């Protein structure tokens, strides 16, 4: 019985991360899966959410802005608002242009935000990041398994809410317009300015969800640093979405679970077989592995494990849900 506790601990810990990643993947799915917007700055928007929530909720920091000691829920809402605002600025600049410009711009945003996280000590604490981020209900539950399980339940509830909200959104007339924009460039052009506004809304909402994911992450781990939001995070979320099947919210969740499982397993295996001195190389190999999986999925199973359920017109099956035409 006593042996079960560490296993249960590990499983809870693992699932918590999976659920947090799933939230981020849902945000990306709204953008890419349903609207065909290519966001390479996922890590940046997640970082905005994480830092915002930390600054709002933590006890006062001696050498940087905040923390304001607000309730965690306020932090989460603030995280969504800040990520949404950044997305608004980026979207206005880049969404009118051809879609790879959005990719490049969001990439630039992530790089710039990474620099800010590293260097703006007054705001982000610099390379050491922010600590003492409150863990909700910790005074009640302590720091052990009980708290982890409670946080897992909370994250699951958030995931459920986000899922239901997004499902309703994409099944609404709004969602149908988004898919029309994604599928058909001419339909999008016919909508003209309205298409831009639809794209912008989808982009902002998606980024808000990513920001919420960042906040969930910050309060689970308790401290954040710039290195938590490197491009590799963007890459992981993308792989989760592609593996699960973009254009399908359940796919995004399944993909998050599958890729996180694979990532954790491959990490464990590599740590076992690679000597201590070569651990850095092992980590590099892990990323190569995930890169190869992403590429293989794109080539052989572009619809992902689950694939798109709604809005796939018969006869377009072969092309799958890979978005707009070249």
């Amino acid at each position: 019985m006593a042996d079960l506790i560490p296993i249960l601990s590990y499983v809870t810990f693992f699932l918590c991360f999976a659920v947090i990643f799933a939230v981020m993947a849902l945000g990306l799915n709204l953008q890419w899966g349903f609207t065909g917007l290519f966001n390479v700055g996922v890590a940046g928007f997640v970082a905005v959410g994480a830092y915002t929530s930390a600054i709002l909720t933590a006890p006062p920091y001696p050498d940087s802005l905040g923390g304001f000691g607000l309730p965690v829920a306020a932090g989460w809402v603030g995280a969504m608002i800040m990520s949404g605002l950044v997305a608004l600025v980026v979207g206005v600049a880049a969404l009118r242009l051809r879609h790879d410009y959005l990719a490049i711009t969001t990439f630039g945003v992530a790089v710039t935000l990474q620099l800010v996280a590293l260097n703006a000590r007054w705001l982000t604490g610099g390379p050491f990041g922010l600590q003492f981020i409150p863990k909700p209900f910790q005074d009640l539950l302590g720091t052990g398994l009980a708290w982890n399980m409670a946080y897992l339940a909370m994250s699951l509830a958030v995931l459920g809410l986000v899922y239901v909200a997004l499902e309703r959104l994409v099944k609404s007339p709004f969602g149908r317009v988004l898919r029309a924009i994604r599928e058909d460039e001419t339909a999008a052009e016919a909508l003209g300015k309205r298409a831009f506004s639809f794209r912008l809304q989808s982009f902002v909402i998606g980024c808000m969800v990513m920001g919420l994911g960042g906040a969930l992450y910050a309060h689970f781990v308790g401290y954040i640093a710039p290195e938590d939001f490197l491009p590799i995070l963007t890459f992981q979320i993308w792989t989760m979405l592609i593996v699960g099947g973009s254009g399908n919210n359940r796919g995004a969740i399944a993909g998050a679970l599958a890729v996180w499982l694979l990532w954790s397993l491959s990490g464990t295996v590599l740590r076992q077989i690679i000597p201590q001195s070569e651990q850095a190389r092992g980590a590099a190999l892990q990323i190569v592995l995930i890169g190869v999986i992403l590429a293989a999925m794109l080539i052989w199973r572009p619809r992902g494990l689950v694939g798109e359920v709604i809005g796939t017109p018969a006869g377009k099956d072969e092309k799958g849900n890979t978005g707009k035409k070249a």
Partner: protein
Amino acid sequence: MLQLIADGLIVGSVISLGAIGVTMTYSILRFANFAHGELLTWGAYLALTFLGFFVALGGAGPMQPIGPFSFGWPLLAALAAAALMTALLALLVDWLLFERLRAHGTAIVLVIASFGAALAMRNLLQFIYGTLPDYYSREIQIAIRLVPRDVMGGMRITPDQLFVLALTAVTVVLLHLFLTYTTLGKAMRATAHNPALARLTGIDVRAVIRAAWIIGAVLAAIAGVFSGLTVQIRPGLGFDLLLPLFAAAILGGIGSVYGAVAGGLIVGLAESLSVPLFGAEYRAATAFLVLIAILLVRPTGLFGERS
């Protein structure tokens, strides 16, 4: 002030060479290749490996520098060999990945794939070479004073830096002659303009794509070695240059080689001149500001033909 301009031009020439490759693959393959930066890194590291090999081949002892430079013939030979290998690497990645995705015909999927390829390539490199920075030569170079200190702060430049500037200029001129006067060069411009019409004209688009990869990769390897020579060799070398490369290519106008060169120099200068304004730590964000500015003001770029 003059010193900042000189520094900016040197960084700018590295960016220019890289941006030519970006703009070329963008206009012919029609996607933004996020893996292009990794070609610079691989070029720099492959040259390091070949350098070791050639130095060992030429007998024990460090390489004999040529004239005032910090490097000798082995580095030039290594540069050539690395450029060749980088071209093969680009063709290999295209064959393994991009060619298969092109068949499905969705350009944006290629961008995702290139993003994955970039991380895989960089980490493979880290796996092979480790993460510590390296140098081609430990020779200390004496900077030449070109402008005395009392004229706008003066300007000093090392022979290696002059070499980089000169070879960049030569490369760009050669590329210009190639694109303007050879059949393959014209075929490449034609394909960039209209691939379907190019096929009707008898151009084998696959051959043109191969040529674009080879030229892009060779220039990337040169840029990578130059960056290694003037700064240092690191696994993040190319990835950190990616944003400046894109900014330069878009600033110049996608598809325009001269635009990419001008864009590269402008981004290099902007980076260098921003240092006294925002501090060295935000230098890398300058390219982003340039990018946003050009997207808002003139998204077709300075020399762009198409939107």
